[in-house]
C-alpha cells in the first residue's frame, strides 16, 4: 500500500481482510483436496504417521518403485463400494487389518481372496507351447502388494456423464460403458480393459472448434488441454509425469504418463489448435493388500502341447486385470523364451501370477 493510506484505502484493506469464507469451508475444501491425493502418497504418509516397522516401510518403497506412481483419486466420487482405500491404512482407517495393527509384513495380512488370472500377452507366438524348462528367475520379496478398485458400472458412467449435463447418445462403442452427448462434447466411458492393458477411462471429443489453444507454443497447448480436462474433473494430478508435447504433421499430441505400466492422459489437437480428442483415467477408489509371493518352483508351467521352448528370461511386472466386479493391478512374472519353427524364430511370453 502507499505510505499513507487514505480512508478509502483503509476501508478497502479492512474489507478484504475481514472477508472470510463461511465457517467449516476451510476444512471441507482441505478434505476435498486430500481426497484427490495419490493413495500411494497417503499410504506413505499413513505409514510414517503410525511408524510402521521397517518391513512395511520397505513395502511402501516397493509400492512406489514397482508401480512408479499412484492410482488416481479425484474429488468427483468414483465407483462406490470399495471397502477400504489406501488412505485407510492410518489407525483411524479401516484398511487391511494386519496393516492396521502396524506390524511387519507378516504372512497373515488380509487379502482380497483369489485374484483373476492375467490375460496372456497378444504379442509374440500366440499358440500353445511345451515348456521344457524355466531357467529364468526373478528374486521376489516375501510379499507383494496388489491394488484393487471397484469396477465402473453403466449406472456410474451414466451418473458421471449426467454431472456434466451429458445424456446417453448411442451407439455405444464395443466394450464401452456408454456414450454420452453434452452441449459441445461427447464422452465415451470404458471399464478396465485387460487386453488393452488399460484401467477405466473416459474419452472426450469436443465439438469441432469448441475449444482452441491460445497459441501454438507448448505452454499454450498444455494449458488448453489441462483446462479442458479440468472441466471434467479428470485433469492430470500430482502423480502425473510430464507433459510431453509431440508434433507430427498437422497434429499436436500432449501426454502425461502415470507410470511406465499405466496409461495416463493424452489429447490430440489439429492444425487449427482445436482439441480433437482427449483421454483420461477415470477416478478410482483403490485399496491395497499384500499377498505372499510365489516361489520359482510354483511357477513352472508344464506341457501345453506345441513347440518346445525354454523360458530363459523372467521379469516382475504389473498388469491390469478384472473379475467384472473389481479391477486389479496385480504382480505377474513375465517369462519369455525363444524357439525356431520352420526357420522362423519366435518369442513366447507367458504371464504367471506372482502371488498366491
Amino acid at each position, binding site marked *: 500500500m502507499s505510505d499513507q493510506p487514505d480512508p478509502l484505502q483503509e476501508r478497502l484493506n479492512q474489507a478484504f481482510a475481514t472477508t472470510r469464507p*463461511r465457517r467449516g469451508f476451510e476444512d471441507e475444501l482441505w478434505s476435498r483436496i486430500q481426497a484427490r491425493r495419490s493413495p500411494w502418497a497417503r499410504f506413505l504418509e499413513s505409514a510414517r504417521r503410525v511408524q510402521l516397522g521397517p518391513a512395511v516401510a520397505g513395502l511402501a518403497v516397493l509400492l512406489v518403485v514397482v508401480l512408479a506412481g499412484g492410482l488416481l483419486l479425484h474429488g468427483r466420487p468414483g465407483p462406490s463400494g470399495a471397502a477400504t482405500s489406501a488412505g485407510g491404512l492410518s489407525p483411524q482407517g479401516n484398511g487391511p487389518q494386519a496393516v492396521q495393527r502396524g506390524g511387519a509384513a507378516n504372512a497373515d495380512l488380509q487379502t482380497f481372496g483369489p485374484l483373476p488370472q492375467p490375460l496372456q500377452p497378444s504379442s509374440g507366438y500366440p499358440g500353445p507351447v511345451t515348456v521344457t524348462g524355466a531357467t529364468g528367475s526373478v528374486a521376489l520379496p516375501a510379499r507383494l502388494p496388489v491394488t484393487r478398485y471397484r469396477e465402473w458400472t453403466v449406472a456410474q458412467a451414466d451418473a458421471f456423464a449426467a454431472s456434466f449435463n451429458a445424456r446417453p447418445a448411442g451407439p455405444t462403442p464395443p466394450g464401452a460403458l456408454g456414450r454420452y452427448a453434452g452441449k459441445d462434447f461427447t464422452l465415451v466411458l470404458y471399464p478396465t480393459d485387460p487386453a488393452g492393458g488399460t484401467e477405466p477411462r473416459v474419452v472426450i471429443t469436443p465439438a469441432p472448434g469448441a475449444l482452441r489453444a491460445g497459441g501454438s507454443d507448448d505452454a499454450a497447448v498444455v494449458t488448453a488441454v489441462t483446462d479442458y480436462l479440468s472441466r471434467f474433473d479428470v485433469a492430470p494430478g500430482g502423480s502425473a509425469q510430464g507433459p510431453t508435447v509431440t508434433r507430427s504433421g498437422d497434429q499436436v499430441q500432449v501426454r502425461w504418463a502415470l507410470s511406465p505400466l499405466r496409461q495416463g492422459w493424452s489429447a490430440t489437437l489439429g492444425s487449427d489448435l482445436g482439441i480433437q480428442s482427449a483421454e483420461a483415467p477415470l477416478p478410482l477408489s483403490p485399496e491395497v493388500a499384500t499377498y505372499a509371493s510365489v516361489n520359482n518352483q510354483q511357477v513352472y508351467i508344464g506341457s501345453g502341447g506345441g513347440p518346445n521352448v525354454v523360458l530363459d528370461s523372467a521379469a516382475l511386472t504389473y498388469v491390469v486385470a478384472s473379475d467384472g466386479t473389481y479391477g486389479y493391478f496385480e504382480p505377474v512374472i513375465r517369462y519369455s523364451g525363444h524357439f525356431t519353427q520352420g526357420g522362423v524364430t519366435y518369442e513366447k511370453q507367458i504371464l504367471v501370477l506372482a502371488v498366491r
Partner: protein
Amino acid sequence: MPGDKPPFEELYRDFLNRIYAYVRAQLGSQADAEDVTSQVFIKAWEAYPRYEPQGATPASWLFRIARNAALDHLRSAGRKERLARAVAHEPEAVADPAELAAERIQHRALLALVERLPERQREAISLRHSGLSFAEVGSILGSSEDAAKMLYHRALRVLREAAAEETG
C-alpha cells in the same frame, strides 16, 4: 520474493482467506466465491508439482490461477445474471442479515462497489488490497509495475466517486 517451495498445506493455510476475499470481490456471491475458490485450490494442488518458485512468488502464482478461474466463471452462463444484478444495483441476498455487524455490512457494500468496477480496475484494486505488491499485480495483469500502479490509482478514483454517489 521467489524462493523455496513451501509445502502445499502451508500455502493453503496462508492464502485461503485472501484468495476467497479476492474472488468474492470479483463475483459478489458467497456461493460462487466458494465454488471458484475451491476450483482455484484444486487446480493449484494439481499444478503444484510443476510450480517453480523461481518463476513467481506463491502469491502471484496463486492469484494468477484465481484470476483465470474468476474470469472463466464470469464468462460462463452466470455472467448475464451478474451483470443484470450489477445494473439493477440489486444487493446480494444475505443468508442471515441479523447476524451481520454494521461494519461488515459496510465492507460488503464497499466490495459490491469494487465488483461493479471495469474488469481491470476491479482486478487491480482486489489484487492490491489482497496484499500483493504492484510488481506482482503487474505481473498477473500482464503489465509493468508502473502501469499497475497507474491502473490502481485510476480505479481508486473511480471507486471514490462511486462511493460518494452511493452515500450522497
